[in-house]
């Protein structure tokens, strides 16, 4: 058993070395495909993180007319909090709103001067409503629109947040789709090149294969080294792509975190290193095996 395995491995390794340029081309193509594959995994995580973070920030703000007394607003709050879709309601009084506004615009002298000149507080009291589920916001808005306190409101602020979220979701889907298409093309090219590599190995060993057949080698005995050759190409490509990804992640990680606070690609990569490497290796081995099987079935007449 051990000598049979040794023979299979030696023949496969010889095949890789014999056509070294084709092997290099094949491994290069597979490496690129695997880098894209792993990048998709990490991009998926990043996109989910961003969308989730935005959903967390989402809320509905309903602004009341300035002449509505506080008790009425609090009554509306009490009415709304009973709804199962609503998890939390924060009341911001007119004074509270003014304080917040002044805090945000401390360095803006124009706004400060405008406020001084107005004299009176122009801001409305509001209720910030958080839903249990981000998909329920529209339901809550519809309910408010049909309620008996609509006349007390100036505006309901949701639409803009929703549009941003929808756009980000669309962008994420678009990038994912583009990556999948790119990966599919590269995968196809990898399979073609690997197929040619194994085909050349079969051709260069044709004398030996003929004699193997004549002395009674089983089909499995003949095929196995070529199948292993394809698998080895996938395995090597996986190792090379990991060696490339590591410095890439270390370099890109802090830059991405600077752009989207809390999104640590580094942390995700290292905490899921085993899974990423395994997924990549399995994908690479499958690529190589498919290509070899194709070449063997097409060109190895046994």
């Amino acid at each position, binding site marked *: 058993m051990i000598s049979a395995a040794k023979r299979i491995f030696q023949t496969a390794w010889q095949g890789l070395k014999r056509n070294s340029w084709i092997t290099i081309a094949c491994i290069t193509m597979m490496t690129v495909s695997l880098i894209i594959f792993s990048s998709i995994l990490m991009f998926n995580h990043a996109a989910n993180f961003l969308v989730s973070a935005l959903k967390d920030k989402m809320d509905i703000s309903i602004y009341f007319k300035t002449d509505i007394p506080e008790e009425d607003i609090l009554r509306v709050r009490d009415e709304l909090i009973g709804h199962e879709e609503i998890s939390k309601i924060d009341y911001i009084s007119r004074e509270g709103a003014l304080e917040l506004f002044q805090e945000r615009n401390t360095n803006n002298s124009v706004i400060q001067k405008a406020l001084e000149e107005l004299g009176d507080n122009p801001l409305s009291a509001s209720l910030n409503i958080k839903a249990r589920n981000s998909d329920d916001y529209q339901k809550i808005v519809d309910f408010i629109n049909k309620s008996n306190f609509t006349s007390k409101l100036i505006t309901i602020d949701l639409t803009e947040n929703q549009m941003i979220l929808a756009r980000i979701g669309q962008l994420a889907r678009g990038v994912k789709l583009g990556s999948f298409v790119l990966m599919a093309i590269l995968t196809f090219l990898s399979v073609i090149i690997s197929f040619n590599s194994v085909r050349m190995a079969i051709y260069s060993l044709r004398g030996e294969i003929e004699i193997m*057949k004549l002395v009674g080698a089983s089909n499995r005995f003949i095929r196995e080294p070529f199948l292993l050759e394809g698998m080895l190409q996938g395995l090597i490509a996986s190792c090379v792509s990991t060696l490339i990804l590591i410095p890439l992640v270390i370099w890109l990680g802090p830059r991405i975190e600077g752009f989207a606070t809390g999104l640590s690609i580094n942390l995700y990569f290292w905490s899921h290193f085993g899974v990423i490497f395994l997924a990549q290796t399995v994908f690479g081995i499958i690529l190589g095996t498919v290509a070899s099987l194709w070449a063997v079935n097409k060109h190895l007449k046994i």
Partner: protein
Amino acid sequence: MSLLYFQNVTKNYGNSLILDNITFEIEEGEFVSIVGKSGVGKTTLLKMLIKEETPTKGRVFFHNQDIAKMSPGEISLLRRKIGMVFQDFKLLPDKNTFENVAFAMEVAGYSEREVKRDVPEVLKLVNLESKANNFPCQLSAGEKQRAVIARALIQRPEVILADEPSGNLDPINTWEIVRLLDKINQLGTAVLLSTHDKEIVNILEKRVISLEGGKLIRDEKEGKYLI
């Protein structure tokens, strides 16, 4: 029960009729020469025994088993029971004599211990023990052919098919090879020798099957080359 049986075998290549309704049996331990001009179908006949060719009509049996109906796994096993010796040797150029012979055992799954035990013995039988480490390019034509016979013998086949084994040899080497095949036959292995060498056939005085125009025209127990 016969070892080999050709039953009404006909072979066409397109519109060309190569073999026409050939029927004969070979018993265990027999030495049979198949003679005829070049292109008469001798090699095709031999190839049918290892399913390198299949008959257009008729059947070929090995121990009462129809070869055409054998599965790929059964064919592999069949080929280990049938040793092949070719005119053009078919030795692996990057393996030495020992390795070329051992190769036949490796494909059959023999252990390294068995290889190391059996190969030297077979090399001794064919007088090549001193050439074990030589590569094919370092062997004479006669030595190469003996290496091929050793490879054919190593799995203890029931029959050896020798397809014009002396085609590339001088007369002295030819006789060496024929004597070796005769010796192997005396040890119990059937031999099917395809040749157009009149001298060999006439001196051997073994069974001769003569082919002409694709037909079996003569089958004599102690035959002569009369074509």
